[in-house]
């Protein structure tokens, strides 16, 4: 029962954090939006003065014009929510965001104005690119890491370590630019832009998508898998020195079983945490890398929203990123409890 209580506590905690973060985000974005909305309102008011206002001035005189202008300004202020005090607006925005009512954008993106719909279009694309790549990275990284740990100090281990250190300091987007330069420009193996061709359907569409995904996926795997392998290696080396491994070896358990059955099982909690965060994080895309590859996923969407001043979309996306992270925290807690009984007992004993 202790585990369930512990879990409920963690979930309640995550929800509390989410509430506060939503308010902070709303406060920040509403502040930004207020300024752009004010300038938009004055622009519209000027527009009105030049067209309808001028007509009223001609036909009904100056007084009627002033009245009509005041009425118009009030209407516009209401439209852009400039008549409401700042904190009240923040409160409203936060509540609406928590209810997943993100509102609409002023310009259509991906053919729709509804923020939720736009995100629904972009998420699968980020999944297609980053989640695929992350899965490859996880499999490759763990496999190579375990191998390096088994033969610690060997040539393979050393070269893997050096490769990991090298790629750890590379910005992914710069590596993307270089790969574009080499593989797309110089060798011509891949297209220069990863924007999908909307006219293709069926099998042709699938072929187009695969062709355009290949280079970004390759870049991601290239930059990230070294770090994964290296971390796995370090965790495994630590575990392989534990007494129970020596005991298993003394018992004559086959090496394969020791590695995958005993050591990897014991090393699992931190690795599983990494997997959870990597997989959930991949749904959010990557802002700069998507810009470099011109890939229409979540990251590029955020940049587009920022450029076009779409506050509603920005809040929606930021909220989405936050929820992903907190979901990762809760999931990691949950899995930790399953995999490492000490956590369960310790946590419930504390409560």
């Amino acid at each position, binding site marked *: 029962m202790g585990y369930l209580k512990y879990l409920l506590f963690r979930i309640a905690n995550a929800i509390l954090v989410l509430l506060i*973060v939503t308010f*902070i985000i709303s406060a920040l974005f509403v502040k930004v939006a207020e300024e752009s909305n004010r300038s938009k309102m004055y622009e519209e008011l000027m527009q009105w003065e030049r067209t309808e206002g001028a007509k009223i001035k001609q036909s009904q005189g100056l007084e009627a014009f002033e009245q009509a202008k005041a009425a118009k300004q009030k209407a516009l202020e209401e439209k852009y929510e400039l008549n409401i005090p700042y904190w009240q607006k923040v409160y409203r925005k936060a509540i609406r965001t928590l209810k997943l009512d993100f509102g609409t954008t002023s310009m259509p993106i991906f053919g729709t104005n509804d923020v939720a719909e736009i995100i629904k279009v972009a998420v699968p694309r980020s999944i297609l690119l980053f989640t695929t790549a992350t899965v490859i990275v996880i499999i490759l990284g763990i496999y190579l890491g375990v191998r390096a740990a088994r033969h610690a100090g060997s040539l393979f281990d050393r070269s893997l370590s050096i490769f990991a*250190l090298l790629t750890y300091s590379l*910005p992914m987007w710069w*590596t993307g630019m270089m790969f574009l*330069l080499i593989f797309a420009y110089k060798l011509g193996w891949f297209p220069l832009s990863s924007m999908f061709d909307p006219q293709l359907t069926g099998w042709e569409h699938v072929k187009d998508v695969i062709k355009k995904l290949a280079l970004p996926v390759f870049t991601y795997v290239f930059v990230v898998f070294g770090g994964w392998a290296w971390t796995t290696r370090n965790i495994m*080396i630590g575990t392989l020195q534990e007494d129970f491994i020596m005991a298993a070896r003394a018992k004559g358990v086959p090496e394969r079983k020791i590695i995958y059955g005993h050591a990897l099982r014991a090393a699992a909690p931190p690795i599983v945490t990494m997997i959870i965060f990597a997989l959930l994080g991949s749904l*959010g895309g990557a802002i700069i890398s998507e810009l470099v590859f011109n890939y229409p996923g979540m990251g590029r969407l955020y940049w587009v929203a920022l450029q076009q001043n779409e506050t509603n979309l920005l809040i929606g*996306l930021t909220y989405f990123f936050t929820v992903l*992270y907190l979901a990762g925290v809760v999931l990691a807690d949950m899995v930790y409890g399953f995999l490492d009984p000490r956590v369960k007992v310790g946590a419930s004993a504390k409560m």
Partner: protein
Amino acid sequence: MRWVDIKEGFKEFLAEFKREKTGIAGVLLLVLLVLVALTAPYTTMPDLPEKWRSSAYWEDNPKNVPPNWYNMFTSHKLVPQRVYYVDDLKINHPSDTETIIEADYDFPKGYYKGPQGIIIRGLNVTLNAPSQAPTMDIYLLRPDGKRIPLLKNKPLTSSTTISIGRDSTVSTNVYIWLVNVTEGREITPFEVPLQTILISDMVAPMFAKVEPGMDVEKIIENPEPLWGTYKLVLDVKNPAPKYNQVDYSNMKVTFLGRVYGTMGTDYLGRDLWAGIIWGSRVSLTIGILVSVLSTIIGLVYGVTSAYLGGNTDELLMRINEIFASIPSLPILILIGATVGKVTLWFIVALLVIFGWMGIARIARSMALQIKEQTYIEAAKALGASNGRIIFKHILPQLLPYAFAVIALSVPGAVIAEASLSFLGIGDPSAVTWGQILNAAQAQSATTKGYWWWVLPPGLGIAVVGLTFVLIGTALDKILNPRLRRL
């Protein structure tokens, strides 16, 4: 902890560090980087950041050309930059009213393309009788004996800069000459196709084989080099030498190279090598400052939280979680894009605010173990204050780990700064690697194949990152003996 203990510990640590080859390599790299950054004003130019944004300063440089050493790796050799000052030019005065200036230009055999353009500047004109202002004719004498009239009766003032290759009048004249030679007919400037003049390279045909019967479009598209000695002639006519004087002493004629400097140039003709050298300053400063500051804040925060415990601990950890759950890069971009003036200090502050959380959590879990040890209890019994116990008894224990954390978090900070300035969010008065890459992306350098523009800044980021990763992992290995190679 007594001073002697620290000294002993440090000596022991130094002896161990000396055995780590990667760590030594990292330290050597760091020394090299610091030297490069410190000597930047002397090895390049002292006021590069101010000049970086003025496109006028870089006008005498060719645009988008690879570095000089590119010629070693290609069969298509490209001519380097050639500059003529007054002593390198032949100046004759056939009469009082006429001056002829000649520049001999050698287009060596085997080279693929002639200069990217020619820039003439630095004529000082004292004008007292404007109605009789001096004028200049420019033409190019080619090794095959042909003569290209480039400009006729160009009025001269002190600010006159003639840039052959960028000036459309000159390009028009070249086109007229091309038609004249190949087809034997004279056309007016109105018959010249404007698009060809503006888009194509009209300097290469000046240094290419042009014979009667050839096709003009083909020459422009695919000029075949004509090697030999060219002569650029400036014929200055000064009808009133008593009133108007022309001074040639500051004159400068530049034959723009197709290659330039150690690292080539970008779209404004800026010397990328100087930019890369100066960029190392910002990168190192921000990387080290951010990681040191966020590590100190994180350590103090985590230790305090663990030591105080109870509800304070819960509250502090909630605040930590809140900061950790805010998606940092999107929010950083938002803040950077909406705040009007961004300074380097502002960037440092932002990166620290969103960078201390992970270290705080590690420090907390370490301090929780240390807290239970008996010597802390003893200190408490002796009546030591909370501050004394935290700063004097717990923090020094974590210090070695702090150094490893500092070193290992530098690459992240460097990449974060580069990412922000890649998106155009950065101090406009500084030269950074991110900005250079930002310009490269905006000018689509990758899709045009300008590798000398994209490669070096990222390599710089990678080298700075690698330096600290090498140092950091060496420290980590010494402090975490389990990671040592078996």
